[in-house]
């Protein structure tokens, strides 16, 4: 396990920004740190839209925002002193994408973002995973689930940083 190979999972939220900033603060003076910024694409259900066009438009907008966020996260890390060549960015497209790119080697089924993150964590041999947390109530967790809780419960052979 390489604890300085760090996977930071982001989703465009403020919690994710805090997780990126924290990671930058912690690792800026480590010459060995390698950071993988990971975003798992998850589009809204097709059922929530009256027609294909409005769904596709929403998906395009979502993708644009996530990719811009990844770029911004890279700037944050570089701004904290992490060398650009030590930062990798990965955007895992949705298997349910309305776009032509879903036939890539790895795509996200979108049913559990946490499981997708854990799968990349294992493949990449990262020793640390970082996620932001909203601080949801028990009732919210029951209904909506929590990516950070699932990662805490299911991550093995690694360190988990949960940034509040």
């Amino acid at each position: 396990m390489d604890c300085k190979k760090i996977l930071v999972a982001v989703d465009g939220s403020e919690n994710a920004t805090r997780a990126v900033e924290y990671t930058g603060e912690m690792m800026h003076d480590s010459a060995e740190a390698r950071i993988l910024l990971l975003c798992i694409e998850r589009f809204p259900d097709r059922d929530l839209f009256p027609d294909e066009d409005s769904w596709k438009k929403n998906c395009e907008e979502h993708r644009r925002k996530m990719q811009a966020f990844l770029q911004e996260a890279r700037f944050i890390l570089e701004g904290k002193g992490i060398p650009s060549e030590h930062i990798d960015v990965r955007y895992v497209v949705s298997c349910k994408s309305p776009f032509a790119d879903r036939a890539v080697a790895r795509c996200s089924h979108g049913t559990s973002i946490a499981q997708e993150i854990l799968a990349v964590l294992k493949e990449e041999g990262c020793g640390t995973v970082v996620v932001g947390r909203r601080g949801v109530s028990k009732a919210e967790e029951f209904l909506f689930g929590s990516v950070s809780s699932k990662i805490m419960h299911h991550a093995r052979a690694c360190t988990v940083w949960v940034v509040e």
Partner: protein
Amino acid sequence: MSSEVSELIRAYCPSFSAKHAGRIVEDTSEFMSVDHGDVIRLGGRHYLVLRDECEQRFGIDDPKYWVKRCREMESGERRILKLVFHETFPIKLGDFEIRCYRSPEKEARILNLVRGDLRFMQGETIPDAKGNPVRVLDIVRGRRLDLRVEDIDADHETYFHEHFPGILNKFMGACEAISFLHSRWEKHGDIRRDHLLVEYETGAYRWIDFDYAFDFHENPWGLDIFGLGNILLFLAGKGEHTTQNLAEKGFSDEVLSSLEPDDFTLMFANRLANLGKLYPYIPRELNNVLLHFSIGTYVFYDHVEEMLDELRPCLRLLGGAG
């Protein structure tokens, strides 16, 4: 009045007053204007519109203008036609407001999936002249399970020992039906007491209404499981037990004073989950299942099967067919 409608009425429904004959409707997009006496033509069949469907809310009839009670003229059978209505609206669950979508496509998909499976309402989807997927539903002739349970004339202990095991057995079958949907990546989406009917003729438990869609992702089955938990609490308690009605139910001060905030449900802080404190003959194993829905729980069910795995031994303990 359309002469074609008058002729259809004369041929197929002579008892229907011809003076109410309306028009032939082939494009159902403007569902508000489809009214009593109109005839919806779909897939070569004709549906005489009798009235809009109503739902009782707070004792008041709430008309659903996109849902039409009809008579299929050729067969004489009663049908419910659900016309396309893409609606977004908030629903309130305890302190939460959840954005809900009405998806005709989702319901059409589930109707296909459960064709012939009598644990669910049956029907088919026929596109109208504009391609709107109209769901033509068979009517489930039955009564709401909760009303049946409320009507059982017995005190709780008698009910629990004599009636509940059979009810639990059938309810678990209904849970298995939901688990089947989940295994095909579909949600029911609107699991409520009034959406589980007991068929008059067979006594079978059957789910209705699958058109709600939500944007839940990390816990896709959470809302369905929450709904099942609510029904289970109702069935085990022979009704709801709330801070408002507990005092009327004749429990001792000692029992009432033993209730703590953790004993109430996660979503509704006035609704009791720890029924074992009121009814000590409820086996601990069953009460533990109920406690999964309480504020005090630290473990949630992610899948219906997890709940069923814990309910099966309870059924055996109660002497039901487990």
